[in-house]
């Protein structure tokens, strides 16, 4: 397999197969980032595609001294943050409107599916409750296993900002989990009281 630098050079020279190789290499990390950021499969597909198109058109600005994965994930995270901002302000352009068709996922046992679905929902719910910049650092840290330095490079922030955002994101998630636990505890207590009253 050719190294990334050669693939970049070949893509710049107009070799579409080289570009395809780059997409193949980074499709999962870009798609995962978009999916975790946007919380929707169709939007994630669209955002991931858009990321690679932007990568293609801006490849001449790529600095070879920079890690290619950080650069691509930087494009993806900025695009997703921008998209979330537009969504928040109700400025969804017609370009962002996507149609989709659902395909059956690969076969799974019902229990496995339920368990995975439950876990996925929990993670997605937690992430969706965070501000976009906090969500981005968590995703890059946990799913892309990036160091503080790499995250700072991808998000064009300082390492101090990354450190602080990671801490605040964890703190917010912990508070959310604690409040959920508290709510569940109250609900359980209510049910117990109702059952006792009935008996």
């Amino acid at each position, binding site marked *: 397999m050719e190294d990334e630098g050669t693939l970049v050079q070949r893509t710049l020279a107009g070799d579409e197969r080289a570009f395809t190789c780059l*997409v193949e290499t980074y*499709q*999962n990390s870009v*798609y995962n980032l978009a999916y975790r950021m946007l919380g929707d499969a169709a939007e994630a*597909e669209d955002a991931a595609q858009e990321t690679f198109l932007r990568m293609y058109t801006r490849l001449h600005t790529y600095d070879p001294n920079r890690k290619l994965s950080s650069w691509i994930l930087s494009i993806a995270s900025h695009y997703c943050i921008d998209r979330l901002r537009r969504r928040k302000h109700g400025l969804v352009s017609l370009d962002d*409107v996507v149609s989709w068709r659902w395909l059956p996922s*690969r076969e799974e046992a019902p229990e496995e599916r339920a368990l995975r679905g439950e876990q996925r929902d929990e993670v997605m719910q937690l992430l969706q409750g965070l501000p976009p910049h906090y969500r981005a650092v968590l995703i890059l840290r946990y799913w892309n296993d990036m160091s503080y330095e790499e995250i700072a490079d991808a998000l064009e922030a300082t390492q101090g900002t990354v450190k602080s955002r990671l801490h605040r994101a*964890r703190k917010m*998630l912990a508070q959310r989990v604690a409040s959920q636990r508290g709510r569940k505890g109250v609900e359980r207590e209510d049910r117990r009281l109702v059952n006792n009253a009935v008996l």
Partner: protein
Amino acid sequence: MQCSRASELMSLRLDGLLDDVTQIALDEHLASCVRCSGEWETFRALSRLLDSAPTATPAPDFVGRVAHRLAKRRARSKARRRRFVLLGASALLLLATLPAIVTLGGLLTDLSNPSSIEAGIRVVTMLLSAISSINSAVAHLFSAFLSTPGAVLVPAYVAIALMAVFLWGYTLLRIQTVSGKVGAGPLGYRVRVQNVQEVALS
């Protein structure tokens, strides 16, 4: 150690960024503070949950869809460039024609000068011969224009030229819409339709 400082250190510890001395100090604080030790347990549980969450992967043939979209976008930008060139050419044509129209109008309005009338007729004759392919109906229309006062004739010409350029531009936009299968109107609205498949979690 203050609880706020302990909370920051917990985050760093999860990422393996604490030195031994700080880690011991944190452990001592956690042993003596119920609130912080509770937070630490939640941090760890959250970290385990996020660590075990699967990577979402796109539906098969993602690469093919990206290539298809890239090809479509290239075609669109090429067509857009062509459209701008044609519109620019139209504008230049109009600019080049305007002086001629104004001159013609001036000649025709100066009816007190017989040589101007002759020159005007010569120009009209030349024009008519140049556009010999235009049928007699247009010729009649042109004659009707000749009988119209110059003050009306020149603005009318300009208005017709502007309308022609606008219609030309509009037609180009519509052609682009149909050929690119992209719903694009003259106001710039675009609706892209594409197949997007469900996420398949690995």
